[in-house]
């Protein structure tokens, strides 16, 4: 299996999009080499705007571009986009429903060595709470690429979160077609549903293999649109399997686990176990060490399923 970081796929897709859509502009806050918007910048320097280390300015400037008909992508690290820029995103992008794509990289703890100050485990929760915001979290490079194009097609604010670490391919070479609001059932099963997002989709698939070998039938759903949630697919899983385990590289408060729990609590009360980060900050280490330490591996998913059987 091959691997690519979703941030790399983001940067490449942005340049590809730039070639076919002249209305795309990219705003950056001094991290273009890390967020990979430097690839777009290399091809379209006149449409790439660095505002310096100023994330509040970044978001509201993107809003200004959007009022003139541009499709503005604004990138920095997830921590500084959703965290520092929250109020600008809320009031100046989402409140007027402007066509800005907030597309940060370096989401989650797999950021690694930079440590807890740079590891956003709250961004999905923050963005999901904003009225009308679309929240996307790709499982791999191919899905990231498709999300960039889908976000550009969609008229309105989108939050597209990507990661720093190389991520196993899920969709490379397949005929998968991403659509906003549609979750992808990667594997059918009747005992338990693993509803995963981001790089945890691969871990969920690995966990499913182990569980199946032990006679447990596992359904795996890639919930790459966290908002709007694909209600029918989640409801079907709740009806057809015994319980659900949500898997995400994010706090268990307000992320995918929160979204699914809220939805099923009102529609089809179901046991929802959450695999994610339990009220903790990140820390320094390699991304892989941290994924081990915070229990975000296939083996942790297996253990979660077994304790709930």
């Amino acid at each position: 299996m091959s691997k690519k970081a979703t941030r790399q796929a983001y940067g490449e897709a942005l340049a590809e999009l730039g070639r076919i859509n002249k209305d795309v502009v990219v705003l950056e806050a001094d991290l273009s080499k890390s967020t990979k918007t430097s690839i777009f910048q290399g091809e379209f320097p006149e449409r790439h705007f660095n505002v310096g280390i100023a994330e509040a300015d970044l978001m509201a400037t993107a809003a200004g571009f959007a009022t003139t008909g541009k499709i503005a992508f604004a990138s920095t690290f997830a921590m500084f986009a959703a965290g520092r820029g929250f109020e600008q995103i809320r009031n100046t992008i989402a409140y007027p429903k402007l066509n800005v794509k907030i597309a940060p990289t370096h989401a989650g703890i797999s950021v690694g060595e930079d440590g807890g100050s740079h590891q956003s485990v709250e961004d999905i929760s923050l963005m999901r709470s904003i009225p009308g915001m679309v929240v996307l979290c790709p499982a791999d490079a191919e899905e990231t690429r498709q999300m960039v194009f889908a976000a550009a097609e969609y008229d309105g604010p989108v939050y597209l979160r990507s990661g720093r670490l190389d991520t196993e391919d899920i969709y490379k070479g397949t005929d998968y077609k991403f659509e906003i609001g549609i979750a992808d059932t990667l594997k059918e099963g009747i005992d338990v549903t693993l509803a995963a997002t981001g790089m945890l989709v691969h871990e969920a698939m690995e966990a499913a293999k182990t569980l199946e070998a032990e006679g447990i039938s596992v359904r795996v759903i890639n919930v790459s649109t966290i908002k709007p949630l694909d209600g029918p697919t989640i409801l079907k899983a709740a009806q057809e399997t015994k319980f659900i385990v949500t898997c995400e590289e994010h706090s268990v408060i307000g992320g995918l686990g929160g979204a699914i729990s809220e939805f099923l609590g009102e529609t089809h009360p179901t046991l929802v176990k959450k695999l994610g980060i339990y009220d903790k900050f990140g820390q320094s280490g390699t991304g892989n060490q941290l994924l081990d330490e915070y229990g975000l591996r296939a083996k942790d998913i297996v253990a979660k399923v077994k304790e709930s059987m």
Partner: protein
Amino acid sequence: MADIKMLKEKATQIRKDIVTMICKSKSGHPGGSLSAADIVSTLYFNEMNIDPKNPKMADRDRFVLSKGHAAPVLYAALAEKGYFDKELLGTLRKFGSPLQGHPDMKKLPGIDISTGSLGQGLSVANGMALSAKLDNKTYRTYVLLGDGEVQEGQVWEAAMTSAHYKLDNVCAFLDSNNLQIDGNVDKVMGVEPLDDKWRAFGWNVIVIDGHNFEEILGALEAAKAHKGQPTMIIAKTTKGKGISFMENICGFHGVAPTPEETDKALEELKHVECCTN
């Protein structure tokens, strides 16, 4: 040549509409609306290339009311210009009204960007202006900031961006009325020397009397002629301007006048009208 008599009449009408609508809604910000009335009148009735029949005209000049709480001055100007029926002014801040407490571009024609949360308008204006430069368009972007508002750090982030990108198509006004909710700006959090600050941030700075139409018009001309830098027009103004018992009274920042006070205010403004005629 600009018709200063007409501008004075427009400003007086706008002031009447401001106090009337805020009195009716029993809620709103009269002080900072009145201090900006002469600037906004000049922009809407002499300066900007806009069309009330085509509020989204692609190449129109833009206006960003960064101090969004002064919404009544913008609503009065838009109504006077013909963007919507003046009757609507009476619905200010009422349930279901397009005249929200702070400007909402989704609800009212003529609003180029929703504002209200302070400190964000200049960034938005920069985005509009960068877009114009990118597409070789000649429209200009006007911004109105409050002097208390520049306490927001984002204003200075945006100030750097405007200068860095040499946005000579951005023209900002700073409504320097020296009052904010909690008192005198210099007591709450000093912002002076404003002219030196903006100059140091790379702006072309012009200081004027914000109630003198010749000076407002002159500054706008100078701003258009100045290339390679954004222009900040620091307009020395009086909060509550035009209504004697509101002038320089901090309490009228966000408090509506009573019906009696409103009658008195309209009487005073009627007198101003006689004098200009």
